[in-house]
């Protein structure tokens, strides 16, 4: 029975689901569901690696799947969840620069754009359309993550955007460049440190970067801001 299941179909399905979780992360306001979306995305990523492993038998992919499960599905969401409980904020309502609906339309444009630019450069590299699709979606996901980081205000959301960016890069590397496993491990360590730092920033100082900056300003120019009150 296993032989009859076409691997490309499943990969396509997982890729689309990953993009959907990305879209939900872009639009959702509820921090809890943002986090669970990220967790779902990482889980899907793990499945993607597993399916690819089943197809190619490349041992690195299996390691990557295990690593993803351990770090991105379990460890990082756990830390973020702790941080969230600590700062006791459940929603990130406001958006900078672009509203969620527009960022989705921009993403559609980005998908086509990255397809266009990849078709200029990668044409000889890969004839496999599926790998192409994966690369395009990977880049788009990374860009979506970037949009989240600059269009949201709360640190938790920004962190998740950053994490999503990394997921996009991982997808791209799975399909196109075969990132060495060691680098992936280093990136994960980096991510964990980032999340920890974000947690310290958020819990220790404030819940949003703006307030943090305001504080910073106050420290820098005590006369201007401190004088009136």
């Amino acid at each position: 029975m296993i032989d009859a299941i076409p691997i490309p179909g499943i990969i396509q399905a997982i890729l689309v689901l990953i993009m959907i979780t990305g879209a939900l992360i872009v639009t959702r306001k509820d921090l809890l569901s943002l986090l669970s979306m990220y967790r779902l995305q990482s889980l899907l990523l793990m499945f993607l690696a597993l399916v690819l492993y089943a197809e190619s038998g490349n041992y690195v992919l299996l390691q990557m799947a295990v690593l993803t499960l351990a770090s991105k599905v379990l460890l990082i969401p756990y830390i973020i969840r702790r941080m969230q409980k600590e700062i006791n904020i459940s929603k990130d309502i406001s958006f900078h620069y672009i509203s969620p609906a527009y960022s989705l339309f921009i993403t559609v444009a980005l998908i086509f754009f990255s397809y266009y630019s990849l078709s200029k450069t990668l044409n000889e590299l890969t004839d496999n359309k599926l790998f192409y699709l994966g690369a395009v979606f990977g880049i788009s996901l990374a860009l979506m993550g970037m949009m989240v980081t600059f269009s949201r205000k709360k640190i938790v959301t920004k962190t998740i955007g950053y994490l999503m960016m990394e997921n996009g890069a991982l997808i791209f590397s799975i399909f196109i460049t075969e990132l060495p496993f060691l680098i992936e491990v280093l990136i994960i360590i980096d991510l964990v440190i980032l999340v920890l730092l974000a947690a310290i920033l958020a819990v220790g100082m404030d819940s949003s970067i703006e307030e943090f900056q305001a504080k910073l300003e106050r420290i820098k120019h005590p006369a201007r801001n401190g004088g009136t009150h």
Partner: protein
Amino acid sequence: MIMFTSLFYLGIFLSLLGFVLPLLRLENNRKAHRTFSYSLSILSSVSFLAFSALVFLKKGEYLIPVYSNAGLIDFTFYVDQLSAFFIAVISVVSLSSAVYSFGYGEHLSHERRKDYMASLLNLFALSMVLVVASYNTLEFIFFWELLSMSSFLFVLFEYGKPGTRKAGLYYFIMTQLSTMFLLLGFFGIYANTGSFNIQPVTSLQNLTLIFLSLFIGFSIKAGVVPFHKWLPYAHPAAPSNISAMMSGVMLKVAIYGLMRFTLTVLPQERWWGVLILVAGTVSAILGVIYALKEHDIKRLLAYHSIENIGIILIGFGLYLIYSANDLNELAILALAAALFHTLNHALFKSLLFLTAGSVVSATGKHNIEEYGGLIKTMPYTAALFLIGAVSISGLPPFNGFVSELMLFQAFLGSYLIQDPLLKSLVVLCLSGFALTSALAAACFVKAFGITFLAVPRSESARDAKEVGKCMIAGAVIPAVLCIVLGVFSLQIFSLMGYRTDLPDMLVIGIIMSLFYAITYLVLKNTAANKVRAGETWGCGTPLSSRTEYTASGFSQPIVRFFKDIYQTREVNERRFYDKQNTLFKEGAGEIHLMKFFEEKLYDPVARSINYLSIKVSALENWSLDTYVLYAFLAVLATVAYVGWIA
């Protein structure tokens, strides 16, 4: 052959006679003259119509010499299927407009104005026909300018009204700009071929430049976004029978020009289709979105013209894309859709403008917020407007639906395109097109519902009387054609020798009327037939016209959905008693709807030109010495130029 061309000559002659006659003021009974002039206009439209129908069915090409002095002036006309089609469209609309004018023309205020109306109507219609039939570019420009001038006079027709002069100025500048771009393109062609004739050119230098200048020139006249701004000013200012012609067919003359020059004259390039498709989609979406916000009935219709021109361009763009990809069947379908929509838009838009004119002349108001309940006082006008509204919203089985269906089919055939990116672009444009047609339906629910249904919202709407027979008859012609062209579309296509596997609207129409009849009959015999008159539920409070839903209320959700497109500008002014801004003294808040294109595109251009001209005029100081100095510098520059280059 001889009979054909004599029909053409006859049409020209009748129109010219109709143009001259009211101006002569021979007798005291001027009304008879005007009636005669309108009749001449009708007759000439009929002869043009017969002529074009014959040419179209024979699929011939005819050269018709009128006057030539072997030099520059060469009035030879050329008619093939494409121009015959457009002549037919023009003639149908001018026919119904002339019939309408029997009644409408007599409503005008001054005796002399009535004369001018009759006279200019003939000239206006004739110049459109002759632009379409032009054989060389000089002729084209000549009649194009004649068309611009006669329509310009119509825009200024009621020059005493506020806003009319601004409309006239806008229209004049834009139309001259369009002529300028056209001249650039035409001379570009001339520079390559040495001939002014409109005929195929195989190789061209500066092809991109020539195409772009022609495209911009025709786009300005057709009202494609972002060159559309003159339309919503000019159309409401003109008398309604003329707005029907301006919107129904004058814009189509520009479409004709675009089609003529891209199809037969210039060698096509691949990207043109993409450009035209995107421009069409943007025009269609923005046109309908602006229309939703508009409550002046004629301006609303003017914005819908922008939308429909966009739809025509979408069809044409798809044609170019498909023919560049060797998908001939789809290409023909798209072109047929574009042409059919041209005809359909001419019909339903003139119908809508004519009936809107009836409403305006019956109530004396332009704002739909002051109408209401007119279906009871003006039932015929209401029924005709409803036919137009259903057609323009693209609902089956009327003609507007058939052309939109053809376009949808052409869009959906894009799975045959090889290039993935082009495919995705087509899908995106498809979604825009679907949005457009749905918004158009919403807009016409508003236009019809607020104007004709429920309780009158003003005294003038309550006292409105049904208009005269001629004004109804003038609108009946396009209305009947809307239905016939919709229901019998497939039969008409096969008559013209175009076979497709489109749904047969006749069958669908029969099925629907059958179901209508069955439900009606079955119920009449089985269900309870008791009917009681009641009053509208208003939670126990008496309802009046003040509690009705308004047009702005109706469009408010859509306005909020698309608020980023409308671009409002908010002004908050606050003044305080003290310096720390704590004690509030007074303030004002305003929300303005920004005229985006006017403020962001037109005004900056106008300002920079103004700035430039001030700088240039600063060079003039009326002193002879200065001018000699300029001449000296010029000669020096020339000498230097010659010295360096040669």
